[in-house]
C-alpha cells in the first residue's frame, strides 16, 4: 500500500549530534549534583525528571524521533502509557492499604 508516513532520510547535521551529546553530559552532571542535595520527597521526582529529559533527547535526536512517523510516536507514547498503568495501579494497592480500619 502507499505509505503515507515517510521518514525523511535526510541525515541530521553532525553538530546536532555533538550538541546533544554535550547536553547529555551536562544533564548527567546535574543529576549527580542533584543526587547529593537533600530535596526530601522531591529527590526522586527530580532524578526521574532529569532522566526523562535525557531519555527524550536520545529518542528525539539519536533515534531520529524528530523525523519519525506519527505511528512511531504512538508506539513511544503507548510504551510510556502502559508502563505508567502498571506502576500506578500496582502502587495504588500498596499506598491505600492502610486507609481502612
Amino acid at each position, binding site marked *: *500500500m*502507499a*505509505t503515507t508516513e515517510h521518514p525523511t532520510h535526510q541525515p541530521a547535521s553532525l553538530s546536532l549530534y555533538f550538541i546533544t551529546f554535550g547536553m547529555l553530559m551536562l544533564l548527567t552532571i546535574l543529576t549527580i549534583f542533584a543526587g547529593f542535595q537533600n530535596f526530601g520527597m522531591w529527590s526522586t521526582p527530580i532524578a526521574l525528571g532529569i532522566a526523562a529529559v535525557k531519555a527524550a533527547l536520545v529518542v528525539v535526536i539519536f533515534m531520529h524521533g524528530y523525523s519519525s512517523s506519527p*505511528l512511531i510516536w504512538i508506539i513511544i507514547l*503507548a510504551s510510556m502509557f*502502559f508502563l505508567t*498503568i*502498571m506502576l500506578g*495501579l*500496582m502502587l*495504588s*494497592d*500498596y*499506598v*491505600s*492499604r492502610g*486507609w*481502612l480500619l
Partner: protein
Amino acid sequence: MATVGLESKTFEKFPDIVGRDDDVNYLNHEHSVASWLITLDHKRIGLLYLVTITLMFLLGGALAGAIRLELLTPKGDFLAADTYNKAFTAHGIIMLFFFLIPSIPAVLGNFVLPLMIGAKDVAFPRLNLLSYYLYFAGSVIALTALLLGGVDTGWTFYTPFSSTYSNSYVVVMASGLFVVGFSSILTGLNFIITVHRMRCPGLTWFRLPLFIWAIYATSVVQLLGTPVIAVTLGLLGVERVLGVGIFDPRLGGDPILFQHLFWFYSHPAVYIMILPSLGVTSEVIATFSRKNVFGYHIIAFSSIAIAVFGFIVWAHHMFTTGMSPYAAMVFSLLTFSVAIPSGIKVFSWLATMYGGSISFDTPMIYAFGFLGLFTIGGLTGLFLSTLGTDIHLHDTYFIVAHFHYIMVGGAIMGYMAGIHFWWPKMTGRLYSEFWGKLSAGITFIGFNFTFFPQFILGYLGMPRRYYEYPDEFQVLNVFSTAGASILAIGYLMPLFYMIHSFFFGEKASSNPYGGSTLDWTNTTSPPSPHNFEKTPVVTEEPYHFHGKEAAVVSH
C-alpha cells in the same frame, strides 16, 4: 450431499477462480520434508502450528480426562494427591500456553491474515519460522518438565509455594513458558507490522475484515503483556535457583507482588485467547448471513477497547488476598468496563443476522454455540467482578465453570468454527457437513453437561484444586464427569472426518461459502505458493455481497 449446496454458494459477483488440475499450490509445489520444516511460507507455518497445537490439545484433554475421573468419587481413589495436583497444573499450562494462546493467531492468523490483506507473506517470514521453533522448543522444555516429574504449583505459580515450598520442576517449566512467551511476542509483532505495512492497494483500515482487527488487537496485547510474565517467571527462577527472597516473606519479599505481576500479564492474556474467536465469529456470521456486519466500525473499535481495558483490571483475581479494599473497589469498577464492548459485539452480531439469509453450515453451527456459551461465560464474569459475590465465589468451582465457559465454550467453539470455515481454503477439500454438524451438536450438549453443574458446585462452596471433596458434592461431579465423556467424543470426531477429508474429501471450489474477503475471492483453494497471481486492488468495504446491480431478489 451437502457439497452440492456448497458449490452453488458462489455468487456471480465472486466468480470461481478455477485452476487447472495440474496447478501448483502451496501444498504440492514442493514435497521434501525440509520444504515443510524450514518453510518460510506463512501458510505452511500455519499448518505446522495446526499439527503441534492439536497434539498439545489432545494431551491437555487427556489430562482433563484424568481430572474428571478422579473427581467421580469423593475419595481420592484414582490418582494420588500429588499426581492430581500435577495433572491439573499440567492441564492448565498446556491448554493455555501451548494450545489456546497460539490456537487462532498462530494457526488461522498465520494462514489467512496475509491472504485477507492481499499480501504475499507476513512482513518477516524468517521471524515467523523462528516463532514456530521457539514455540516448539518451549513445548519440548515443558514436556521435559512433565516427564521429569511434573510441576505441582497450579498454572498460577503463586509464591511462596512455587518459590520455596514446591519440590517439583518449577524452574524447568518456567523456562519453557519463558521461551514460548517469546514465540507469542514475535508472532504478535509480525502481525502488527504486516497489518500496518503489507495491505494491498485500496485496502484502508476500515476496509479490513473484522478478523484482522481482532488479530491486530490480540497482537497488541501479546506485545505489551507477555514480556511482563517473562520477567516475572525469570524472577521466580532466580529466587528458586539462588535461594533469595524476592517473593518469599521470610526473606523480606512480598508474595502479593508476585500476584500483581503475574496477573498483569495473565488477565490480558485471557483476551489473547478470546479476541481472535470474536474475530472469527464476525467473519462467519457475516458470510453465512450474507450480510455486512452491523456496526462494523464499532465492532472494530470494541476489539481495541477490550485489548486496552484488559490491562487495567488485573487485580480482580486478588480481591481476597488482603489487598487494599479501596484498590479492590477501583479494580472492580474497571473490570466492568470490559463487559460493555463485549456486549456491543454480541448485540451487533444479532443485528447482523436480522434480515439476513442464514444458512446452517458447520461453521455457523459452531458460531451459534459460541454466541450462547460466550454470553454465559462472560455474564458469569460479572458475578466475579462484583465484590460482594466474588468473596464467596473466589477459588471455587464457579470460577472453573466461568473460565471453561469462556475458553472452551467460547474460544474453542470459535476456533472450531474458524477451522471448519477455512478448511476448504487450507486443504482444497470439503469435509462432511453431516459429521461436522453432528460433532458441533455433541460438543455443545456435552459441554453444558460438563460445566453447568460446576456453577452450582461453586455456589455450594466446593473449592477448586481439590482431589477429595465432601460427599454432598458428588451428584454434580458425576454429572460433570459424564458430560466430559460426551465432550471428548465431540472433540475427537473432527479429528477423524477432517483427516479423512484431507485425503479423500471432495475438491473445494475457490469460494465454497460465498465469502466476500480477499482470501475467498482472489485465491484458489488451496492458494498458490505466492497467494495471488496479481496483487489485488480493493475498492469497497468488506462484506458487500451485492453486485453492482444490487440483485435484491425477493422471494
